[in-house]
């Protein structure tokens, strides 16, 4: 208590100039983001929900690809059959599974639960599997789902609605956490998904800045995939495909009311591994494969793409990179008083996070969010400190060691030959 009251006293005794200096990192790297979210929240337009017939304008194929998922496949297929707008076609792919997955798929096919089933003996990675299925799919809209995900009843119905706009090439689904009660870490991730994925993408949508139709649950226009060549080799194929669609001029949509649930890592080690993979792939794709988007002399240069690239560079990369320097500077400058300062910052951030959380909860339908409210404090520390360090670690790993080229999510034979 003493520490907090000291912090508050200190805060209120500062001049504007010293306040700005003290909170530089917060003011530069946190406030604008929040401000944007506030802004969007204020002008938020809820997506117009269309009558059920509208969801039947296009033929819909769902693709479920997996490696060693003998238990998950039947569950996933059953949940697809429960949709208010069931898919017209389900294509399943077993990517070199060594368990009974291929047999499970064959039985599902024989029972008529799915429409197409393919299995390979050798693992080729997710991209290759999706490419086969997408080409063999007969739907105009292709929905990709991870087989360990489960869907809200209206998820398919809602995710296909935006395709009425012929410019839309892909629509991202709203992926939320199925196991927030599993651990404090999982709870923090649940809040993170709510804020960054649900609210974050809703704001991005307003600004036409949705950059990733996640592999967990998203829909694609088949003709758009054909035009852009589908998935490329290597990890982060969802971000890759989305960025390419954007580069080709397709609009990317997002539906907050197309909800998909997934289990997040419960332990720190799992979480770190997952985020390292994501962040490494993001770095590699954005600043190697799509680096041309930052080059004004490249013929493919576009303002709309520069924006999200700079946003990512400033808020994710530089924000994480400056963090240790800022903390070190505070300690050098103020000695042990730095802790008090950091806590003061956190107090402000907790307040901001609370408002953002409430907004996210308000704008995210179907998800039971309010039970997460007490954990916003934990989220502040998770997002502001823990995730920054994880990201930093991932960026360094990728920059210095090219680790994404050895990721076990992609078979080594692919790593060996694919371009950087």
């Amino acid at each position, binding site marked *: 208590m003493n520490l907090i009251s000291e912090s508050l006293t200190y805060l209120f005794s500062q001049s504007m100039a010293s306040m700005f200096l003290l909170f530089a990192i917060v003011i530069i790297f946190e406030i604008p983001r929040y401000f944007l979210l506030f802004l969007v929240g204020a002008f938020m337009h809820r997506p117009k929900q269309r009558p059920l017939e509208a969801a039947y304008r296009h033929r819909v194929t769902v693709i479920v690809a997996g490696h060693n998922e003998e238990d998950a496949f039947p569950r996933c297929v059953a949940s697809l059959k429960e949709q208010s707008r069931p898919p017209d076609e389900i294509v399943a792919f077993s990517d070199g599974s060594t368990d009974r997955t291929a047999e499970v798929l064959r039985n599902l*096919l024989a029972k008529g639960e799915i429409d197409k089933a393919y299995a390979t003996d050798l693992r080729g990675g997710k991209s290759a599997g999706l*490419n086969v299925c997408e080409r063999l799919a007969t739907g105009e809209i292709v929905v990709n789902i991870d087989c360990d995900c489960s869907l809200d009843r209206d998820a398919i119905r809602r995710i296909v609605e935006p395709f009425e706009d012929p410019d839309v090439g892909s629509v991202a689904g709203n992926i939320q956490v199925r196991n927030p009660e599993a651990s404090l870490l999982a709870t923090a991730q649940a809040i993170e998904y709510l804020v960054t994925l649900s609210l974050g993408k809703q704001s991005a949508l307003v600004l036409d800045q949705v950059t990733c139709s996640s592999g967990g649950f998203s829909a694609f226009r088949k003709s758009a995939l054909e035009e852009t060549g589908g998935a490329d080799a290597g990890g982060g194929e969802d971000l890759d495909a989305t960025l390419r669609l954007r580069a080709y001029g397709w609009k990317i949509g997002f539906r907050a009311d197309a909800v998909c649930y997934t289990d997040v890592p419960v332990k720190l080690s799992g979480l770190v591994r997952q985020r390292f993979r994501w962040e490494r792939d993001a770095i590699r794709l954005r600043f190697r494969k799509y680096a041309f988007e930052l080059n004004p002399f490249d013929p493919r240069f576009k303002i709309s793409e520069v924006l999200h690239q700079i946003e990512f560079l400033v808020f994710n990369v530089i924000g994480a990179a400056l963090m240790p320097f800022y903390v070190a500077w505070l300690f050098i400058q103020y000695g042990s008083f730095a802790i008090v300062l950091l806590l003061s910052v956190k107090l402000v951030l907790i307040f901001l996070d609370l408002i953002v959380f409430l907004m996210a909860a308000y704008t995210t339908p179907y998800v039971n969010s309010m039970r997460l409210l007490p954990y916003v404090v934990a989220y502040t520390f998770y997002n502001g400190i823990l995730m920054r360090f994880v990201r930093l670690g991932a960026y360094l790993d990728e920059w210095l060691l090219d680790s994404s080229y050895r990721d076990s999510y992609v078979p080594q034979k*692919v790593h060996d030959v694919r371009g950087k």
Partner: protein
Amino acid sequence: MNMAAVGQDKDNAVSTGKKILIAEDSPVTQDILKLLLTSKGYDADIARDGTEALKCLLDKRYALALMDFHMPGLNGSEVVAEFRRLADGKAAPVFVAMTADPAALLAEKNSCEQFAKVFPKPFDIDEVLDFIDFSQGGAGRAVVPEGLKLPVTEEPESGGIGPEGSAAALAQETARRLRNTGGQPGISSLADAVEFQVSFGSLSLRGLRWPEDVGPAGVSVATRSYLASGGGYDAVIVSEPALCEDLRALWEIGDLYLLPVIDENGSLGPCADVSVPSLPRGSVQRTIEETIRDFSEARMSVHVHIRQSKSLSDKVAASTYVRGNSLKPHYNANKKHGFDFDICLDAKEGAAAMAALSELGLTETVFFDRFHMCGGCRSVRMNVREECFSCRSPNLKESKFIHHFKCAYQAAEEDFRQGSDLVCPKCSRELRHFGVDYDKPGIIIRCQACGSSSSDTAVGFQCMDCGYHTDGEVAETTDVFGYALSEKGIAFVEEGPVVIGGLQTKLRFAELPLELVIQLNKAAHDFSEKETPFSLITMSFPARREMVSEHGIRLVENSRVQMMENIKNYFGGNAVTYHGEAQDYVLINRVSPENARANLPQYLEAAQSGLRIDLQARMTVFGLEDLFA
């Protein structure tokens, strides 16, 4: 109605002069005689041995009794003597004897007086019928009574023995022809019998020939006459192409099904017992000879009740026993159900009969095969094929997946192929280095009919009989088994239904020792006169076979005798014991069945006292009601 009551009611007995008793142990002769007599308007009863004949004679009133002289139990002459002793002034029928050995009959002192007429076997059936008609005062009426039920028609499996499918019509025809030919020399059954001689080399045998004697229309009239007159056969000779179901008639008359089937042209395949074309040169005569001898020996071991049984299951059991104790299936593509057993009986009938025996633990099954059946016509003649999951076409083409590592394009090999080169359709790079540029991770199967594809194929069946298509997943299956008689099944055939507990709740007079029958009649008489109660206790030995194999027949039989001794001592002068074939009997005077039942454990204990081995005897009490109801 009990036996005592019969005596009292004798004057009220149905006053038909046309009731005839046939006492005859051969099932074939029984069937034929009954058929002929019934067709002539007589009401014929069958007694299968001397004891049963005696009981019938005492029970009912007959105008004439046709007695076989040699019968199990007591012979014809003894039956007549016993009847006269017990008849108590009851009107006696006209007794007629049939025998293959007239000399032995005539040697018996009383025979000449007892029998009105003796027919030597094989006899001329017309003479017998004429005599019966004559003795019963007039020509027989060739009328088939309404609702006539013949044993053969009682079996639900029976398809009838003639083309008309009506046994009654056949009986009528038989009777008519017999009348027309009656008395004419040269067409008599004896003359026909000579024709039944068949020769294989120097071997001469009495053959029941297909199609002359037993043909598509059933058993010929001449054959019936021959059989009725007590004639017998050594084998069935199939001299023209036949199917196994053509010989169904063998299962309908007596125990003809226990004759070996000798197939001269091989058309019956494994259904025949001897297939002449498949025998090595020079061994035909010997093989036939041996088969006939083996069958004949095996037939002798079949218990008389099983031989005389009308149940198809019993017949199949006996057939299996005689034919080396196994009933094997073999593939037969000419049959919708795909197989036949190695006997001349429809496979379904055979399987149903065996299933019934199996339930009683009489057979052991050996899995033969599992057939998939057409959902439309139940045929197993189906084409099995790999099919498209979508349109069920078997027109499938398999090709390999190619995975191009560099751009993640994965597709069928054709998509990559440009002449002899492989070129990626997505990135236009050439695939040069297998394992480095690309690999082939699996297969893809394309349907040439509907264009759909898959990594796997469905299995389907196309019926070649009706064209009906069945999916592999839903196709019904049926399992076919071969059978062998279990130890219990062999015992069943050799020792009769007693093995399966057939006598536990029901006594059959035919099985009781004669002295016991006489004593029972006396006891029943006493009960109706003086109300003196009595009980009959049977002692059976369900575990006898195990006992014999464990302790030896001598010890078992001695123990059995000792048990009876113990019982006799326990009851003093009140009980009489009798030694039967399969079980022993104790007739206890002045003890009601209720009391006997209550004291049964004590009796059993008394019987077993001092015995070295426990025979696991089972005692059952029968009272007057149980015996004569």
